[in-house]
């Protein structure tokens, strides 16, 4: 394959860029297979041209298909910051580097592709660490670019100097520093490959300030070949074994996890469950890949299905805390599919058949290997149990008591949303209500927290979703405690014209820890950002306030005082 490379004019020093090769390069990403060495061909006019590090970085990013860069400016990264718009990359500058990193992950959760953030040296990187750690736990592909102190000034006490690489190694799957300016494109290509490969995850690439500000003859830069992602095929013998076990099960079920999303396998998953007639639950980034109202889908209520099943097919879902560590001794057979062999049988779970392979490719093979199953009675029994649960939820959602019951908030909200709306449910106790009352109908629209346990990151996910899906509804559903973490990002939403609706389930404190915060008028922040805000204290006020907020073309806050000690819906733990 040929590998387009940017062309540079004869401008000096600043790397004056004369051709938009970045856009052409991005298009090449759709090609398959690994081209080799094609990037060495030079453009005729490039001999006298010089290009600086920032320009190389921006063009390398654009070549990878990057359109948005979430970041916060700093002297150590200025050349990239300045060059990015010219390369066709929109910079979304946030108010804290934590939000930059979270937004980069949010982009990957919303699109299935690699999100990118850029942070400056020292505290820029340390502020971003939690975002990287969250992406690592979630297995979300993202690239974090950082400036760093000069190479020459190492160990001199230079400003913003800290061993960033060592920090980054603990919260990423790959971390590197660039030592030679001409290798920036090569390292960027490596970074994207690493982020996408195997179990996806965050990667880190730093360029020292003296390097990013320097320049090089354009003809000395060798642009690496681009490589399209490839699907790892499963073993046919193992697929046959899995098909046999599923076919002989009385109560088979599928649990789909994030691996389905990263494999872009929504169509394959749906085709599989419909062909087999097998019930399904979706977890984390797989939420919405098959809509919750599909006759075979039981949403995210995995326990209600898993504890009733006798044979389970787990696709792209870690056997982690969010999945009972995979400890289900009642099962006759557990079949696991994961692109990463390390995940197979994690926690000493006795996996009957472990298939190392891409989620989409394996589901396709399984579909071809199986005949439809007689699951009507089994599915009907699950639907009956789900109906009982739903009745309990509906009763709570109909509550007219004040303070407002949280189930009423999430259900009123749900009723006002379109199917392609993004709902970012933040974390902690509030998440229980979101999980119980918010449905997923479209992939990437319900970005999930990781088992790291972050709170307050949701607004950054919402920023990214609003950038990725302009014109759709984007809601940040958050508790009053978590709201305080990154609330200033509503300013970012305002500056970029992103109509994010913030709905606060305000139970007046950190209820999981019994620490009060009291009544706070968070809604009054909105006018300061040219938005609108409302306080809701009565159930009757809720719907009109939500309608006004969702209709507003800018940031809005609905601060709902909810019952601090609400009743839950009964019966699910009876199994």
């Amino acid at each position, binding site marked *: 394959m040929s590998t387009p490379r940017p062309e540079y004019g004869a401008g000096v020093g600043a790397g004056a860029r004369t051709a938009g090769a970045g856009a052409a390069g991005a298009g090449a990403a759709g090609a398959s297979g690994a081209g080799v060495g094609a990037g060495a061909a030079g453009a005729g006019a490039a001999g006298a041209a010089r290009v600086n590090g920032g320009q190389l970085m921006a063009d390398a990013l654009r070549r990878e298909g990057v359109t948005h860069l979430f970041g916060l400016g700093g002297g150590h990264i200025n050349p990239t910051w300045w060059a990015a718009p010219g390369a066709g990359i929109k910079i979304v500058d946030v108010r804290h580097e934590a939000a930059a990193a979270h937004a980069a992950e949010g982009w990957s959760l919303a699109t299935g592709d690699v999100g990118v953030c850029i942070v400056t040296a020292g505290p820029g990187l340390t502020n971003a660490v939690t975002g990287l750690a969250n992406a690592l736990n979630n297995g979300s592909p993202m690239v974090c670019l950082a400036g760093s102190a000069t190479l020459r000034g190492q160990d001199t006490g230079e400003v913003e100097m800290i061993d960033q690489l060592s920090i980054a190694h603990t919260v990423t799957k790959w971390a590197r520093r660039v030592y030679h300016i001409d290798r920036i494109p090569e390292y960027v290509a490596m970074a994207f490959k690493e982020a996408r490969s195997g179990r996806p995850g965050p990667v880190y690439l730093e360029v020292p300030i003296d390097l990013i500000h320097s320049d090089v003859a354009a003809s000395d830069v060798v642009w690496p070949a681009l490589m399209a992602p490839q699907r790892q095929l499963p073993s046919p013998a193992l697929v046959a074994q899995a098909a046999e076990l599923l076919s002989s099960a009385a109560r088979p079920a599928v649990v789909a996890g994030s691996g389905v999303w990263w494999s872009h396998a929504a169509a394959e998953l749906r085709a599989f469950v419909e062909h087999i007639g097998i019930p399904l639950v979706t977890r984390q980034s797989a939420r919405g890949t098959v809509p919750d109202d599909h006759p075979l889908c039981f949403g995210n209520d995995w*326990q*209600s299905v898993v*504890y009733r099943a006798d044979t389970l097919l787990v696709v792209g879902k870690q056997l982690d*805390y969010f999945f*009972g*560590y*995979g*400890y*289900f*001794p*009642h099962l006759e057979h557990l079949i696991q599919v994961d692109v990463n062999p390390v995940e197979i049988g994690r*926690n*000493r779970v006795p996996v009957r058949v472990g298939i190392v392979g891409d989620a989409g490719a394996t589901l396709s093979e399984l579909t071809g290997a199986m005949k439809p199953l007689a699951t009507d009675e089994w599915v009907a029994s699950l639907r009956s149990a789900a109906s009982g649960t739903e009745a*309990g939820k509906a009763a709570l959602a109909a509550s007219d008591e004040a303070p407002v019951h949280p189930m009423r908030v999430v259900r009123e909200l749900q009723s006002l949303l379109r199917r392609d709306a993004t709902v970012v449910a933040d974390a902690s*106790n509030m*998440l*229980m209500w979101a*999980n119980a009352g918010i449905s997923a109908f479209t992939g990437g629209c319900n970005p999930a927290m990781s088992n790291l346990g972050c709170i307050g990151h949701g607004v950054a996910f919402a920023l990214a979703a609003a950038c990725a899906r302009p014109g759709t509804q984007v809601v940040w559903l958050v508790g009053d405690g978590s709201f305080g973490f990154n609330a200033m990002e509503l300013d970012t939403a305002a500056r970029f014209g992103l109509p994010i609706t913030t709905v606060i389930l305000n*139970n007046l404190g950190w*209820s*999981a820890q*019994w620490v009060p915060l009291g009544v706070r008028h968070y809604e009054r922040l909105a006018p300061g950002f040219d938005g609108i805000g409302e306080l809701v204290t009565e159930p009757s006020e809720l719907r009109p306030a939500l309608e006004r907020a969702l209709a507003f073309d800018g940031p809005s806050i609905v601060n709902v005082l909810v019952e*601090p*000690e*609400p*009743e*839950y*819906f*009964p*019966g*699910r*733990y*009876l*199994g």
Partner: protein
Amino acid sequence: MNASLLRQARDTLPKRLNAGILMGDGGFCILGWMLLTAGYHPITMYSNTIGVVDPATGGPAIDVVSRVYDVDRAAVVELARLNDSTPRASRRDVLRGAIDALLEGEGA
């Protein structure tokens, strides 16, 4: 039956018992409280309505409580049903009475 453990759970019941969730919004249902009393960490029950999330000793909450307290599964189901069907105001007293009855039935 582990009468000693059951008595401990009864005698330390919190002022408020939740319905329908092992642990959340600052409280526990009867099963969650029994699990906590038996030494399970809140994180194994947090935001959880059915199962105890533990890689070695977890599983459906009913089964785990039955095993840990050495109480018939049906009796545990009855405790859970009673917990959820009783109004909050009287839930604690009703559950306390139900545990008393369990202990008396065993002559404990």
